[in-house]
């Protein structure tokens, strides 16, 4: 009795006296399978209890490929598809997930995307959930982006991506793509595309629109609120996933939106780098041995020894409040250990655990004590951005020669990662 090979076929399932007819589907539970009945409902069976499965009709899959509309009056945009909910679709006929990576599947699910722009090119460097990505994937995306950005026929790039670690990628691209000339827009969806309520439609339409704008920055474009009315264009180094499920999961931290993006207009809200004729330079060197560690009450500072022994070159500590860790007065103080590992050459940076606000180690004696150990305080930089930036800075041999050089570079504002003027 072959089950797996008949997924998608119309079958008769015999179970005791009962016979059920429907389309055979895989089940998420092992040892079972599903049957889509004529009324559309799926019911399940234990493989062991089934006497016989008879194939009534083989269903042959027809997917017609066709070219989506193209018009000389519309601007050309390129897409980089990397995976995530926005590019995934459950196949209800056969079970499992289909990736939407061809122009015709994209058109079928997001027809509105093609109303505003021509999707001139689609690049698929890999298909991954964002939590499975690391710096090597950022490097691939950056490479493809730089090629597309240097193509005179392309106005801007839209990158679709999973949401979980999207803000790491947006940070990485902000540092990796030097001399930026055109918009680089990252977008996502929190609700799958098979539902009528998917947030992907608005996000994609607004992203395509933003990609044709004069904003030559790496930005994340997505729902500004829970409403389906407009998106924010958010600076790539100042954005963070702040909700596990809502449409407006991404929030700008310590900065302002670049623009409000509606499907039909853009309202600019702050200064930005203008579209220009530069040639983009790819600068994606990265030091893998970098860590991000959150400091918590009672934590043993010996954790730093582990990173040192493992050959780590740099570490970003998420410190409490204005920039504190347990000091000499604590039962398990960090001051000595911090001095020790930095002397041995480990670079230690600090980013705010509070997420919002700027670090200032000078206000309290505890902060001053830690500052003396040599920690590089990164002002209002997001911890995630700090992690990416530290890897990027240490990836440059010419910068990683000394602690002071690294400190200089970490505090140099490359891509708006530091905001000197925080407003409420």
């Amino acid at each position, binding site marked *: 009795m072959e089950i797996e090979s008949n997924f998608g076929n119309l079958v008769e399932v015999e179970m005791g006296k009962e016979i059920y007819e429907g389309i055979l589907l895989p089940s998420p539970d092992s040892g079972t399978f599903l049957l889509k009945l004529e009324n559309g409902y799926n019911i399940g069976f234990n493989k062991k209890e089934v006497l016989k499965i008879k194939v009534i009709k083989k269903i042959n899959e027809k997917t017609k490929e066709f070219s989506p509309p193209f018009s000389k009056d519309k601007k050309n945009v390129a897409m980089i598809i990397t995976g995530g909910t926005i590019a995934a679709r459950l196949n209800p006929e056969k079970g499992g997930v289909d990736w939407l990576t061809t122009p015709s599947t994209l058109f079928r699910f997001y027809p509105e995307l093609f109303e505003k722009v021509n999707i001139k090119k689609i690049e698929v460097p890999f298909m991954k959930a964002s939590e499975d990505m690391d710096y090597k994937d950022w490097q691939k995306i950056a490479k493809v982006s730089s090629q597309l950005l240097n193509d005179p026929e392309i106005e801007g790039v839209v990158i679709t991506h999973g949401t979980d670690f999207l803000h790491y990628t947006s940070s990485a691209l902000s540092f990796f793509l030097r001399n930026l000339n055109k918009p680089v827009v990252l977008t996502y969806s929190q609700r799958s595309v098979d539902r*009528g*309520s998917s947030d992907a439609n608005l996000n994609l339409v607004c992203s395509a629109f933003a990609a044709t704008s004069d904003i030559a920055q790496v930005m994340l474009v997505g729902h500004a609120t829970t409403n389906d009315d407009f998106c924010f264009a958010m600076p790539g180094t100042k954005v963070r996933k702040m909700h596990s499920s809502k449409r407006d999961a991404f929030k700008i931290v310590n900065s302002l939106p670049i623009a409000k993006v509606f499907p039909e207009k853009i309202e600019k809200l702050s200064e930005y780098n203008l579209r220009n004729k530069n040639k983009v330079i790819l600068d994606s060197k990265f030091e893998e041995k970098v860590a991000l560690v959150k400091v918590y009450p009672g934590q043993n500072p010996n954790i730093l020894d582990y990173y040192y022994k493992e050959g780590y070159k740099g570490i970003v500590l998420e410190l409490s409040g204005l920039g504190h860790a347990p000091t000499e007065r604590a039962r398990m103080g960090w001051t000595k250990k911090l001095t020790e590992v930095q002397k041995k050459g480990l670079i230690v940076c600090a980013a705010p655990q509070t997420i919002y606000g700027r670090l200032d180690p000078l206000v309290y004696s505890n902060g001053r004590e830690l500052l003396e150990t040599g920690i590089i305080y990164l002002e209002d930089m997001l911890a995630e951005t700090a992690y990416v930036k530290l890897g990027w800075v240490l990836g440059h041999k010419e910068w990683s020669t000394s602690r002071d050089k690294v400190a200089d570079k970490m505090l140099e504002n490359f891509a708006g990662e530091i905001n000197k003027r925080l407003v409420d």
Partner: protein
Amino acid sequence: MEINYKEIGFKAGLEIHQQLDTHKLFCECPSVLRNDLPLAVVKRRIHAVAGESGEVDVAAKFQSDEKKEFSYQTYDTTCLVELDEEPPHKLNLEALNTTLEIALLLNCKVFPMTQIMRKTIVNGSNTSGFQRTVLIARGGYIETSGGKVGINSIYLEEDSARPIERNSDSTIYRLDRLGIPLVEISTDPDLKSSVQVKEAALKIGEILRSTRVRRGIGTIRQDLNISIKGSNRVEIKGFQDPKIMEKCVENEVLRQKSFLDRKEKNPSEVRNCLPDGTTEFLRPIPGSARMYPETDLPVLHISRELINQVKKNLPKLKEEIEEELRKDGLDGEMIKLILKSNKLEKYKELYEINGNPKLISKVLLLFPKEIAKKEKKSLEEIEEILSHDVLLFLLESVYKEKIQERDLKHVMEKIVSGVSAKEAIKLEKEDFLDLEEKIMKIIKEKSGLSANAYMGLVMKEFKGKISGEDAMKVINKFLK
């Protein structure tokens, strides 16, 4: 005109949607409808999603042709799940239990393994763009005087959002109803006459009401599928009252027949039943809606143990309950009242505390009504003060002889006037002592009168605050 149903090849099936009396199906929000101002309004759009083959469902297209904007009113009794901003929580097991009860009472076979599905809905009444629904059982029947009527399937699903205002390019919905558990029962097309349609609807209604379902307007919706030989199937919605069903069926048969008489065929459509039993066009009949799995939730396993447990505790049908209450010594009027006001559960709980059915029915039904009338307050207000806990306490106090049965109403009145239950039963005792003192005083002041003469004086003094019986007891006590 008398209709010969057999001759015209009449076929009808019922589809009944009944709300269950529990919290929402996929979140912990209470199932309460709100009529106050919303906390916030959320704006969304719904896109028609093409199926694999690229074609869009006929009904879906009909409703989504215009690009409509949908507004959703939120309350402190709705959460991110109704807003389509959080994945569904685990299926409400209380709702599943009730559905299983209904399935078993309707003699259905329960599926041991079944998948929660998403049924595509594009009119905006579901924030997600689909309705979550799961097939629970099939293959049952009910008995009617015209023979067995097959129960085709039983589904458990989430109710849709309430439309509040429809405009040409937008609709405002209220999220309070979205997600309330709904059982859908569809019969086979076995119904052979308008009389049988009504009988089956009433019978299923009665079975539903023996389980934990919501009561009142809008908590049950009945749809009818009707065709006669040679005609197209028509679905009729919006029966407010089963009484109208019979007339509506007759009208629809005549309407379909008039097409055939003109050598035409009636369109296959959904029609709305009007209060006078006629119908009006609502929309085309939807093609089979696109259904795909709810991947945010695991496959639902309904174990043999669970089914057996439900079987053991199956609720009694109305007739059985009536018989039991009659054995308790209640009269028909009171039994009717208890069932009608949906207070059987409360009655039973009070019965556990104080096994005096007549007293319980008074405390539960008569006194609150009388007090409401006297105080010129609504019964709801009175029942809110005289809560179930208060009644439990009072009946317990009677049982423990802390207060007299005859004082109960007076105590309840005091509680309604703002005295706490504990204080009220204490006061009642003091009042009685106070009463004795006063009567003694009256007797001392005018000595030598007959008991009846004192009675007159006492009753005048107390102006009906005490019963004659009580007064006489005290008078006799002092005259001895």
